[in-house]
């Protein structure tokens, strides 16, 4: 009753400035980023825009923009939204001849739509804004032979569909530290320049959703837990991921400037999309900032996402993905349920440490690859898909790769404990399991009990392999490797907050030894956590917690202390202390209120 007694402080916020309360240093950070990007020399619409907005190197910037509009060798979805974003930001200061060239870009070059979710978001954002900018033009005036009106309607229709899908069953390319930029940047561009107030509001809501989704799994700039798509360097060194720069800008973490640090710099070079955020009038709602930065109380957060479009070898186009993440102020432990949920770049589970050091993570994987796996998601000939993917992603078939989905890997997580079962078919090309242990851990020791104990700062990790393994020394990490086709990893994570001294944590675990039973297709692991919970997990079978099955079907769209949503409801509710913000995607409304204390 008390909970339902709410005071509706703000109903239907149509004007963004009503809610826009910048974080104390956000203005300084965004100005700083614009200045930094304006000083860069790489040829991109982002750099050009920053230069012209600040008046820095104006002549050079105009030349660069000219070359971007006339170079026929570039084009596509990345070009499309960035080009129109620059045009709309700069049009009052561009010479007419250059404006004509930019218009011509949408007439004479094909803006290729691509074949991924992020491609389509960029493509249709670009098309929507271009058609809005040059309305009432005939079919001959557009690269695709469609009129302004036809293009506008098509783009609007798809963008609305994407908002609906993303707010009801989730993104296919969800929670990607690498690809976050390819969603948030076009969405903020749409928010900034869409003339239709409803589209503008939906873009604002989508930006809120993307940031809130990030915020609940955010720790000190790191995008934690399981990810749909991630590049190896971003997995090994999470603050190298482009999403970290957005965290710096909007969440104020990490507290140092990432681009100043050579250990993080490379990924940000040439990828200054974040500057579109810095120039945007969008302001992060304070509640999302609080959710992203308050780690005073540990919590469990679960989510449902969706598998990327399956075109072959499946009976369901977008089966659900189940995410589980445990967040504390010192670390996060997060996982997907395992199996093939994304081709190429899946990151199924990890521990991420809140640390000033790079390589602040531990995880394992099975380096699986197959043409058939790729053919589930791509229409090309499966015999060549592995090679084709290798041409660009380089490491897809590599036995040492650090990103992979595998049908032979499944997880079961409960709070700060995870069981990872591996059950690899005979004859698989890479019949081993790898684990990443950074060399810069403060401690790493192999205990006679079989546990591997690690410490980074205040975070403790205990890692147990039920079957034999070996260590391989590499430049920045120890590679834990097991050639056992059937194996199980047990990982317990704790911190000084929960465990006291590291030695105490070790003592709590030394007497615990997990047991692997069964065989063939259904190995079973049983384990009692240090907090006394009994976990029993069978490969391709049930996950039992204290004897009770964990039912994924009961997972909400979002469920945790900060974010809640029922699947397919289209209503996402954020809660922080007595502050509530509700996004209703069906009605395109945003409500905020405060609960009575």
């Amino acid at each position: 009753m008390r909970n339902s007694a709410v005071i509706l402080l703000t109903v239907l916020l149509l004007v963004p400035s009503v809610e826009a309360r910048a974080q104390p240093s956000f203005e300084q950070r965004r100005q700083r980023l614009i200045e930094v990007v304006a000083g860069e020399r790489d040829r991109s619409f982002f750099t050009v825009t920053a230069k012209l907005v600040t008046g820095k190197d104006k002549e050079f910037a105009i030349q660069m923009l000219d070359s971007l509009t006339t170079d026929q060798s570039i084009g596509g979805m990345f070009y499309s939204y960035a080009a129109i974003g620059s045009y709309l930001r700069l049009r009052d200061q561009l010479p007419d001849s250059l404006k004509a060239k930019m218009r011509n870009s949408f007439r004479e070059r094909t803006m290729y739509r691509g074949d991924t979710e992020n491609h389509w978001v960029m493509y249709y954002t670009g098309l929507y804004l271009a058609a809005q900018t040059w309305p009432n033009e005939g079919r001959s005036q557009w690269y695709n032979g469609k009129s302004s009106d036809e293009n506008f309607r098509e783009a609007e229709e798809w963008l609305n569909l994407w908002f609906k899908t993303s707010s009801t069953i989730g993104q296919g390319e969800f929670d990607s530290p690498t690809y976050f930029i390819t969603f948030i940047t076009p969405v903020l561009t749409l928010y900034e320049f869409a003339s239709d107030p409803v589209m503008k509001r939906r873009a604002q809501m989508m930006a809120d959703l993307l940031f809130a989704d990030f915020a609940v799994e955010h720790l000190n700039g790191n995008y934690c837990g399981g990810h749909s798509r991630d590049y190896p360097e971003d997995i090994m060194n999470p603050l190298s991921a482009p999403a970290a720069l957005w965290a710096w800008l909007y969440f104020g973490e990490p507290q140092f400037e990432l681009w100043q640090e050579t250990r993080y710099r490379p990924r940000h070079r040439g990828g200054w999309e974040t500057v579109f955020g810095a120039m945007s009038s969008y302001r992060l709602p304070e509640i999302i900032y609080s959710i992203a930065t308050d780690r005073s109380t540990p919590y469990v957060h679960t989510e449902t996402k969706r598998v990327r479009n399956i075109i072959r070898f499946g009976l369901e186009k977008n089966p659900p993905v189940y995410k589980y993440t445990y967040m504390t102020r010192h670390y996060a432990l997060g996982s997907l349920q395992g199996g093939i949920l994304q081709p190429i770049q899946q990151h199924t589970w990890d521990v991420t440490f809140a640390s000033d050091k790079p390589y602040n993570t531990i995880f394992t994987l099975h380096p699986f690859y197959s043409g058939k796996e790729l053919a589930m998601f791509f229409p090309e000939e499966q015999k060549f898909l592995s090679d084709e993917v290798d041409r660009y992603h380089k490491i897809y078939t590599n036995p040492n790769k650090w990103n992979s989905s595998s049908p032979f890997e499944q997880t079961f997580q409960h709070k700060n404990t995870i069981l990872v079962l591996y059950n690899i078919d005979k004859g698989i090309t890479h019949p081993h399991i790898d684990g990443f242990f950074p060399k810069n851990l403060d401690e790493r020791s192999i205990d006679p009990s079989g546990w591997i104990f690690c410490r980074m700062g205040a975070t403790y990790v205990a890692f147990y392999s039920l079957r034999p393994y070996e260590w391989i020394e590499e430049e920045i990490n120890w590679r834990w490797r097991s050639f056992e086709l059937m194996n199980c990893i047990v990982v317990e994570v704790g911190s000084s907050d929960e465990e006291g001294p590291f030695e105490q944590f070790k003592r709590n675990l030394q007497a615990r030894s997990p047991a692997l039973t069964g065989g063939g297709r259904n190995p079973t692991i049983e384990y009692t956590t240090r907090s006394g919970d009994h976990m029993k997990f069978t490969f391709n079978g049930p996950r039992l917690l204290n004897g009770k099955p964990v039912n994924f079907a009961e997972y909400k769209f979002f469920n945790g202390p900060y974010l809640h949503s029922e699947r397919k409801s289209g209503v996402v509710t954020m809660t922080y202390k007595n502050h509530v913000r509700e996004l209703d995607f069906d009605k395109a409304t945003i409500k905020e209120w405060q609960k009575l204390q």
Partner: protein
Amino acid sequence: MAKTAVRASRIVAISVAVVSSLSLYAQRLEDGRRNYYAAVFLNRGHVSGGASSNIGLFKRMSSDTIWHNIYRPNLFTFGIGFWERGATRRYYIAGGNGLHRSTDEGRTWRVLTTWKTEEILSVALDPVDSSILYVATPFGVFKSTDDGSHWVRKMKGMKRWYVQRLVVDRTDRRKLYAAAEDDLYQTTDGGEHWRQLGVGVPGILSALQHPQQTAVLLVGTEDHGVRVTTDGGRTWSGGQNLPQTSFYALRSSSDGQALYAGGYRTGLWKSENLGRTWSLVSPAPNVEAIYSIFVHPDDPKHLLIGTCGQGVYESFDGGGSWKNIGLQGAHVKQIELYP
């Protein structure tokens, strides 16, 4: 006696040479009004959304040796189509951005589909009514009856949605065949209903109807060679002598005397008995895979093959010798001779 025989054989040889030259001349004269079109899906180093790199629709005039990119160097192009009646000509591109159509000899193009039909893997055209179009996509068959203005998904009876190819029957324009993930499907009512033809193996990659004996159908499969029916799909058998690998391309000479098949590390294969037995065309060009085959309609010994990453090869002697004729690095999905 011997001198007479030699003289006679010389006369025969000269006559054959003259006839052959005249035939070649006539063919070139005819070809002067036609051009080779090649659908290029990928090229070395191409990245979706990255810099352009010679993919799209290519055209080579028969009198020329150079392929010209005539439509968009960044368009993933899976297939092409052509429709002609009287003075009306329509060219189609099945591509990543949708189904494109040109009504002005390729000078301008219009995308006929929207986001609702994703990557178009192939196009099939009603031979009589140009307003009726079919496309095969990873999400099923779509049909338009109003020249591409509206599209309806036509999947009734299909168990899986991935469809690679569509073939319109030569005797009945409402009858079509769909090469799908799990089987070859047939419709007899313009796509309203589909039924499985029970090829016996999954992964149908290509399909061909014999130009004369229309009850003869061939399908190229994933890992199971080529399978053949001679009774319109009631019974199927495997093409003999063929490697049990993936066959992407099937083609017939215009008279149906020779059938060709190619695929993953197969070389080019030929059958002269309706696909029952096959022999390797020797020497086969050393290519990774054959994606497409073209047999010249006026000269069955004049062959072109589109490869996976090695461009186009041409043979004038029925596959005895081959010469690479360009598009190096390209994955060539289809080759046709159109005006």
